[in-house]
């Protein structure tokens, strides 16, 4: 589940944001023991979040600062303090060098040298563990030095962003992860190959079915005129394809745009009675042959989801930019145009031959990523580019200013006029300089930026599911049912009108940005005693007799003086903070 080979992996940390980290950092090194104490308490809360993953530098800093605080508040004798400092320093040297340890034990001295920790600190550690206890003076000196070291090496470098680290080589990831990643890659590749194979088979059987339908229609001489509803076999194939698409949409799209599927081969066209020669079509305003459109309609209808349509548009434009043969380019452009048409606003519907909703791939207008589409479109110049661009421009949710539209179209025509002859939609203005594709893109970018300022909406990432449906909605009945089940308790269903999906876990509406927002001034301490289970209360089953048990201390010889119960009561009275 973890460790994707991403550029910058997102990590979960204990601080809410950088501000909280900086806040604690500042307080730790403030030399004011009130602030230091505050930071120590916050770190205790961090440890609750981190669990076993508390960074050793954070833990060591906290231990050492705690010693300093106790030293400064002056309630402890020198000998007490030496013991405290001793533990903190020994732990620091050991845990910080442990990472650098290899299979064969290396002396701490060597490891420390590589970490810029001088030998005297290591010797101090050795004195604590094996030798005469060092003096308090040395303890303070050692603590001072180590805190400086941590300041320099950890606190000021962490989250600073000065390091461009390669996450693949981070300390955290060991061989296991590497092996796992390779395995994943291998698995993915194999999966992909199999996916391709499978989807080709499926599509071929789809085509076979559809040809059969076509032949039958042909025999009946199109008496019914329309294609029949999908037969059982065909729906079965469609279901399978749909299932497949749910899993591996990319692969399906990959295959669909290959020759022989959405891009018909000459033979296929012939068998559908379509003239495959290029003279018969208008390359400037591509349009799918009706029969061919009908041929694929059942499949595309099944697949038409927001994500799929976006994906296939994206793919078609990519293909178009790869300078395909004119035959391919024509059909790619036709499909793009077809999809755009389906999405067009109602007033444009009459634009071409009236299509009943039955003949459209999808009926409801989708929010396409318009900006992306424009760039994709101008990135893939072909004879039909002005035509497609026109379609996109007139269709956008937030249309570009008319002059921008005009300019874009004009530029586009200029660029594609090699294909064009005199049929450009706008007469070219001789005053206009000659644009290259690059300058066109730059202009486009400029216009996008302008647009981005005016409208705050950014195109949704293709990967992310549409988020509108994500927000849970409870019907009034469910709400009432839940609240009546909770009646009599302090619990209730939150009925605030809050779009929760906008608030990530850990954030609520109106939450202050202040790092001290969760501080509580007053709290109530509750002492709860364990429900002690006396051993003799344990059930005996069917006359089972367990071995007679004695709790420790009952025989009085070697058990501790206090039972667990006593200890619990003692602990309950103990206040740590």
């Amino acid at each position, binding site marked *: *589940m*973890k460790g994707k080979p991403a550029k910058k992996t*997102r*990590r979960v*940390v204990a601080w809410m*944001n950088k501000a909280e980290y900086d806040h604690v950092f500042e307080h730790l090194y403030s030399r004011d023991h009130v602030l230091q104490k505050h930071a*120590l*308490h916050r770190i205790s809360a961090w440890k*609750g*979040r981190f669990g076993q993953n508390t960074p050793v530098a954070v833990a060591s800093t906290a231990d050492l600062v705690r010693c300093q605080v106790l030293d400064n508040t002056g309630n402890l004798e020198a000998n007490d303090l030496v013991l405290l400092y001793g533990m903190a320093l020994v732990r620091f040297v050991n*845990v910080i060098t*442990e990472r650098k*340890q290899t299979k064969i034990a290396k002396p701490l001295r060597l490891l420390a040298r590589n970490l810029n920790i001088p030998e005297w600190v290591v010797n101090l550690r050795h004195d604590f563990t094996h030798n005469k206890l060092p003096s308090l003076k040395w303890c303070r000196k050692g603590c001072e030095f180590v805190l400086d070291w*941590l300041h320099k*090496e*950890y606190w000021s470098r*962490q*989250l600073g962003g000065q*390091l461009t680290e390669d996450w693949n080589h981070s*300390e955290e990831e060991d061989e*296991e992860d590497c092996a796992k990643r390779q*395995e994943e890659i*291998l698995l993915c*590749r*194999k999966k992909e*190959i199999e996916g*391709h*194979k499978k989807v080709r088979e499926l599509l071929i*059987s789809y085509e076979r079915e559809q*040809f*059969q339908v076509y032949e039958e229609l042909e025999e009946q001489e199109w008496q019914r005129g329309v294609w029949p509803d999908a037969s059982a076999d065909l729906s079965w194939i469609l279901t399978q394809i749909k299932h497949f698409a749910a899993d591996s949409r990319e692969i399906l799209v990959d295959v669909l745009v290959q020759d022989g599927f959405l891009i018909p081969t000459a*033979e296929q066209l012939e068998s559908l009675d379509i003239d495959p020669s290029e003279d018969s079509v208008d390359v400037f305003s591509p349009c799918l042959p009706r029969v061919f459109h009908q041929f694929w309609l059942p499949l595309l209808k099944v697949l038409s989801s927001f994500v799929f349509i976006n994906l296939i548009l994206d793919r078609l434009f990519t293909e178009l930019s790869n300078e395909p043969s004119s035959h391919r380019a024509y059909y790619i452009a036709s499909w793009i145009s077809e999809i755009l048409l389906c999405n067009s606003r109602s007033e444009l519907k009459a634009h071409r031959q009236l299509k009943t909703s039955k003949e459209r791939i999808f009926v409801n207008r989708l929010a396409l990523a318009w900006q992306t589409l424009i760039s994709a479109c101008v990135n893939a110049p072909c004879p039909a580019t002005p035509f497609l661009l026109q379609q996109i421009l007139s269709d956008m949710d937030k249309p570009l200013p008319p002059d921008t539209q005009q300019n874009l179209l004009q530029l586009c025509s200029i660029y594609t006029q090699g294909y064009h002859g005199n049929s450009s939609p706008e007469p070219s203005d001789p005053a206009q300089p000659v644009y290259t594709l690059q300058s066109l893109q730059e202009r486009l970018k400029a216009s996008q930026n302008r647009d981005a300022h005016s409208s705050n909406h950014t195109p949704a990432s293709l990967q992310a*599911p549409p*988020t509108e449906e994500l927000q849970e909605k*409870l019907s009034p009945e469910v709400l009432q049912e839940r609240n009546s089940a909770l009646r009599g308790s*302090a*619990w209730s269903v939150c009925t605030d009108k809050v779009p929760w*999906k*906008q608030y*990530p*876990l*850990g954030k609520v509406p109106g939450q202050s940005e202040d790092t001290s927002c*969760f501080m*509580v001034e*007053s*709290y*109530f301490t509750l002492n*709860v005693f364990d429900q002690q*289970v006396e*051993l003799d209360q*344990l*059930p005996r089953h*069917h006359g*089972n*007799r*367990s071995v007679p048990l004695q709790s420790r201390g009952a025989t009085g010889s070697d058990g501790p003086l206090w039972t667990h119960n006593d200890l619990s009561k003692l*602990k*309950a009275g103990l*206040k740590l*903070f």
Partner: protein
Amino acid sequence: MTMKVNKFSSHAKHKQQNTSTHHRLTNRHKKCKLKKISLLNACPGPAKLEQHLTEKEKPRLKRLKKSYAKPVTVNPENSFSEEVKDKAASGCFTRVHTNGDTELEGSSNSEDSQEWNAYANSVLQNGTESLTSPDTDQVDKDGLQYHAQLDHTQNRAVLVMQQDQTLCFRGKCLLTCLYGSVEVLGFTIEEGQQPYQLFSPPSHCPLTITALGNNSSSNKNKKEGRLEAKAIVRKYLSLEPCKRLINEVDSNSCVMLLEPLDTPLTRLLTSFTELKEIFGINLLELRSQAAIHNPALSVVGVKALRQPCAQGLVMSHTYNEALDRLLSAWAGEFDRCPIILVCGAKNCGKSTFNRHLINSLLNQTASVEYLECDLGQTEFTPAGCLSLNTVTEPLLGPPFTHLRDPDHMVYYGQAECQTDIDRYLESLKSLWRHCSGESPVVINTMGWIKGHGLKILIDLIRLLSVTHVVQLTCKDMPQCQLFTPDFLKTTHGWQTHPPTPSTLTEAPASHLAVRSYVFLNIISEFEGAGKSGEMRFQRSNELRDLSLLAYFSKMQSPEPGPMRPLHCFIPYQVPHSSVAIGVVHCEVSPNHILYTVNASLVGLCCLSEKVAGTGGPVVLSQTPICQCVGLGVIRGVDMARGLYFLVTPVSPSVLKHVNCLLVGQITLPIEQLTMQYGAEAELPYVTSDYSFEVMGAGKIHIHKGLLRRCFIK
């Protein structure tokens, strides 16, 4: 409750019908104790409130059951053969790849356009090409092994298996036995029983379906049986596929209906990119090309495996022997209700054995009680929970596929018990009080069997008056201490002492002979025994994350739709002063405690004390041992109004009683925090700037078995 009765009556029925015919099963003493069962049904446990509540919750989960298998690990000893396989496999990859390419290019320059025009069926030559490729021949040959046909209209498959035939598979499906009976991980499924969910993900050893044939054949003659079976096949299949299958049907074959399995759980898991393959095959199987191509089976989500990957569960001689002993103990050879404690080091097969044992017991009894003492690899709950469960449905998949609300649960909050052994043992004792003792009890223990772990086990054996101790050991592992009754006579536990001769004479009750227990040692012989799984989904932290995901998948709507991340749910709210909060695993300053609580996973617990603060949070001074009803996530803290917001799958009628929230070391899977679609604010607690290159940025690292220079030659 109704389920129990159903199960009981179905058993009772076939018991009556088939008493004389259960030859195969009699060696397992499959004598249904009608009396015992009816007794069980007649007396519900103490009518405690919580119990009542949990009971009510049950039907929702009842059908979610799964069993599961062992990790399969690459054995280094096999590296040679593996290499060979590797080569073969990579050869295949390339070939497949080339096929794909040729198909691609070949499509436009085909020559047989006549045939094409005649019947449009060669839309693409590659279509016909791949049909005749050598690959396909092999596929067909393998496909013959399994006679399965698809019902296209309903998208389900009918599978016919001959007696003793086995099908070892990866994937998932819903299995209904239409004719005869089959066995899966010890559980016998017979015609007329409800459909069962089978899950066989790559995290564990694959499931095997074994056809047992038809038990009731003696009542009818062979011909009648055959006709009946054929009639069933006809009922489920249309003419064409039926024709292809009908000749395979005989009076002692088994007919099964396999349907695709699509639950909120499977939808949620597969919606994560990293978990797409969670119901696929593992790398080892991929390398050895173990998947058998069978279109009908793969449509319903079953990938049959061929040898050598189709070994399934490897049962050693000692394994079978122990299982037989335990089953006969329940069937009456033993005069007490068995309390079976299963122990052994990590990865020796404890939990698979547990599932097998429970499933086998469920052939004979309506329910089995299960005490979970393993905090890290829990069977029915997310990690960190100790629980007592009544199992009435077989376990036919790994733990994360059959999470259930236990009868009683205590939230320990950590995946290991070292930090507070007393609380661990006290928690178990408090659970044990609720054990009814009317059905067999299976106790699962930790893999920690050294040092204090050994002492804890000794305590458990004594405290829980265990009647059978099953210890799994691995063949290749250094010998570990066996928990024989003799050993127990002389060893101290953490809380308990061995009986001393003096107390025997002093204590008046001790003249009753002290009962010992039966000790059974299983030597695990499967490949990779004792080693932790290294492949995807096999490591313990991944399995823990899966369990948590599965737990929260209960919140997803049962209808297909987008999978909602946790932050999109409408939360419950509760005032700060009405619930106590506590951190289980470390001391947190109470003034700062909300920094720990916010966006954390919490155990939802019920204290008997009334919780009423004076404004501000109520902080526990120590961790109580109390009933836990489930887990939730503190989705936010409203400081202005003094409210906690909580999202949880626990139903409101149970949530009502919750007055204590415990934060433990068990954390949400990181994706739940790092991937929150739709959230507009900056994600709290998430950063992409944290650098592990910086000194001291990692957690404490422990080198085990560090070598000293002086010991190296």
